[in-house]
């Protein structure tokens, strides 16, 4: 249908892009993860599995990894708990201003991520909006210290940032449910509550899975929120990778951790897609 030249012109740039900016770096990352660093901070180009041994052997890495997962899991749960009812309301409840309300949910995405994280810093800090208000109202005598520089702050901020990412796929899947199915369910005697659990929720599971995957994967790899708001107890795995590539100058170990994360996330995405497919019927 299209000429050879045309096809070449269209396909070569993206192929080049993917090769140069994705495949080659992945390959380099893989190589680095099998190299090591000499005491004089030179990269030793001989193959070794030491980095992986260190990763599994030293408690701090696994601990941080599990903490990151635990933070990401909480973010996912809260983002779903916020995003689902919101999507449900917009899809089934609100008839007027539906588009406007949708835009309002999406607008925060236009604001720089950094700005939103800083906003939480000003809200949660010991001289922040929340603490001064609480003290002004005489509800607390001293600033609440756990608000900032804690996993709590990280979970709160990431939940705020990633709720639109759970909202959108859930909303899309709810909008795709033919309203005649809801009517059919009512027609067969099911109350709105029964209809939700037996028809609407099962049919929205692909959206829930997609949203959960977004929230989990994005917050698992997050490094700004823990950097700005996490404090020592809120450090996540990406912070470690950043410091290994930076100040610590241990690229091979950093590469090994990155690669493990990559494999983990890709597996997760693969599983989630399999599940989504299992739960969709069209």
């Amino acid at each position, binding site marked *: 249908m299209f000429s050879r030249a045309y096809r070449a012109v269209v396909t070569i740039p993206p192929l080049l892009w993917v090769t140069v900016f994705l495949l080659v770096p992945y390959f380099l990352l893989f190589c680095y993860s099998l190299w090591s660093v000499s005491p004089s901070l030179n990269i030793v180009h001989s193959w070794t599995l030491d980095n992986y041994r260190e990763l599994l052997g030293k408690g701090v890495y696994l601990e941080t990894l599990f903490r990151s997962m635990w933070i990401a899991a909480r973010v996912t749960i809260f983002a779903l708990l916020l995003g689902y009812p919101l999507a449900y309301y917009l899809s089934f409840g609100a008839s007027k201003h539906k588009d406007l309300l949708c835009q309002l949910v999406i607008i925060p995405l236009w604001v720089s991520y950094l700005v939103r994280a800083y906003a939480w810093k000003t809200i949660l800090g010991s001289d922040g909006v929340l603490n001064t208000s609480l003290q002004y109202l005489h509800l607390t005598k001293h600033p609440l210290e756990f608000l900032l520089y804690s996993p709590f702050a990280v979970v709160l901020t990431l939940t705020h940032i990633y709720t639109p990412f759970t909202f959108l796929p859930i909303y899309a899947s709810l909008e795709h449910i*033919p309203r*005649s*199915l809801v*009517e*059919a*369910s*009512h*027609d*067969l*005697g*099911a*109350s709105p509550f*029964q209809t939700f659990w*037996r*028809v609407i929720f*099962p*049919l929205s599971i692909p959206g829930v899975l997609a949203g959960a995957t977004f929230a989990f994967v994005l917050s698992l790899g997050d490094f700004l929120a823990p950097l700005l708001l996490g404090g020592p107890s809120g450090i996540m795995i990406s912070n470690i990778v950043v410091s290994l590539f930076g100040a610590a100058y241990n690229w091979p170990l950093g590469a090994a951790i990155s690669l493990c994360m990559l494999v983990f996330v890709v597996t997760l995405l693969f599983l989630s897609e399999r599940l989504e497919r299992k*739960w969709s*019927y*069209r």
Partner: protein
Amino acid sequence: MGGTSTTVQSEIVQPKDTASSLLSIRNVAKSFGQHSVLRDISLDIAEGEFLTILGESGSGKTTLLRIIAGFENATSGEIWMAGERMDSLPPYRRRVNTVFQNYALFPHLTVEQNVSYGLRIAKLPKAEIASRVEQTLGLMKLTPYAQYKPAKISGGQQQRVALARALVNRPRLLLLDEPLSALDANLRRQMQVELKSLQREVGISFVFVTHDQEEAMVMSDRIALLRMGQLEQVASPREIYSRPATAYTAQFVGHTNLLRGEVKDGIARCNGLAWRTGLRDGKGLFSLRPENIRAATSAGSSVRFRGKILRQAFHGATELLQIECLDGLVLSVRMASRQNWQGDLELEFSPADAVPVRESQERD
């Protein structure tokens, strides 16, 4: 004419015999904003009756069905079922079931789970659910597909699942919203017959919505013809065909010739044709079915005329001729098929077959 079978237009109908009237629609009107969709509909449906709501698209027939099912609220009027007022109940508290136009089968449930849905909601004992589902699947010839998801079976099978899912609940009234419109012509004709015999078998009242007048005639005990949100005529298929009340009915149900003329001193005159009639003097409008015009024979008191064949259309057993007669009047005539029609024809019809009809009101 007369009796319950010819409830015409805005007449207020009280159920004459509450024992036999299952559903009673009283003065129901519906408007969406400024737009009036249904105006003052009153209609009774008897126990075990097959009633078809017939109308072209935009006539309000689906809206009327949705009001009975409870998916829409009437702007005014009442709906009674078996002596209880039903219009204030939400759809899940009404003892009616619906077969949807697109079937609306639950895609995540198997055929069996779809069919058992209503019974599980009603929390019937497991054994009873199993036996009723099995019986209904058998009745609908769906047993081999019990474990299939709806996407894996054909349109005709989906249609039967939709029917089974409704019938398994043993409703007293089944609403069907153009359930056959998605099927191809042959399957459709087959389903018309099956549906009708099924309805006789189970003895449930059916309210069937369609835009297909042929389908309506084949299946119904009575047809309620809806036009622009008002009932044009409610009668048995035979009566609605042979004695249409209005010009619209005559034209919508079957094919007809409308003869516009004058009645004076018991004689109707129209484009040079004349016949005796019992009507009062004034303007007259008559419906004359094409099959009631025949080749002239020597005897009888029929109206005779000559005509020239303009066009002919072959329909298999019959053919439809366009015949130009006196004063440029063109009539459709249905004749048994024959090889050659040539030249002028001598034709006739009985005055009794020229049925006086009312002019249909123009509406916005």
